[in-house]
């Protein structure tokens, strides 16, 4: 059980942030909404509260911008948007991931066909 949980967490580490970048790519989204959408993905199985430190780091490395904005109802929301370097990082990941996935699929035998 623990091994399975650890495997999922190892796979998540290093890929989850690009899922976040892709989520923000087309439209600005506020933090709680990012957390909610990720929470709906069962295979990511991320603890919601751990996403906020991740968002914080992506902002600190300059891949995301954030700004607080009043919401029509409820508390102010922190909206995230993709910076130019975030966009570059995302496209580098896409290239890397595609060849990485193909290699793993071939070696592990998960490629289907």
């Amino acid at each position, binding site marked *: 059980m623990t091994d399975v949980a650890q495997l999922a967490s190892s796979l998540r580490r290093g890929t989850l942030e690009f899922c976040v970048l892709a989520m923000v790519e087309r439209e600005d989204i506020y933090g709680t909404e990012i957390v909610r959408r990720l*929470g709906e993905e069962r295979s990511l199985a991320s603890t919601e*509260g*751990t996403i906020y430190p991740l968002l*914080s780091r992506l902002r600190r490395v300059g891949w995301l911008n954030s700004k607080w904005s009043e919401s029509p109802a*409820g508390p102010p929301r*922190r909206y995230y948007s993709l910076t130019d370097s975030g966009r570059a990082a995302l496209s580098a990941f896409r290239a890397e991931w595609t060849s990485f996935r193909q290699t793993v699929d071939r070696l592990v035998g998960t490629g289907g066909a």
Partner: protein
Amino acid sequence: MSIQKTDVVGEYLREVELRLSGLPLLQRHELLADLSAHIETARERGAYSDSEMIEVLQRLGSPEAIAAAAYWEAGPQPPRATPTPPPPPAPRGGVPPWVIFMITGIFVVFLLGLGAAVAMVRVSDAPAPAQDMVEQAPVKPDPLPTR
């Protein structure tokens, strides 16, 4: 009811904050603001009861898990700001003062009773209690000789 709900949330945020002492001030505040906004949003969406709010907090994760993620994402900190283990929570409650007072009182009464019993036994056993007084007198330490 509303007070209790606030208590659960307040205690949760305090528990998280306790564990973030090794993080730079602004990162700590940023995370707490994010968590507060998250909780507030859940409340706006109808998490009114205590049990619903606890569910929201459970999905957020334990204070330990959140702090671990915060340290992980913060990367290595300068030595001054190395993550310090959270101080053990101060023992709550403990023995109320009145209990100590009562136990002391009972003990004193017991001692007094014991003393009285011993005195009575002595009175009946020793025919000359005055002698005791006489014997005790010389035991008194002499004052130091002055030179």
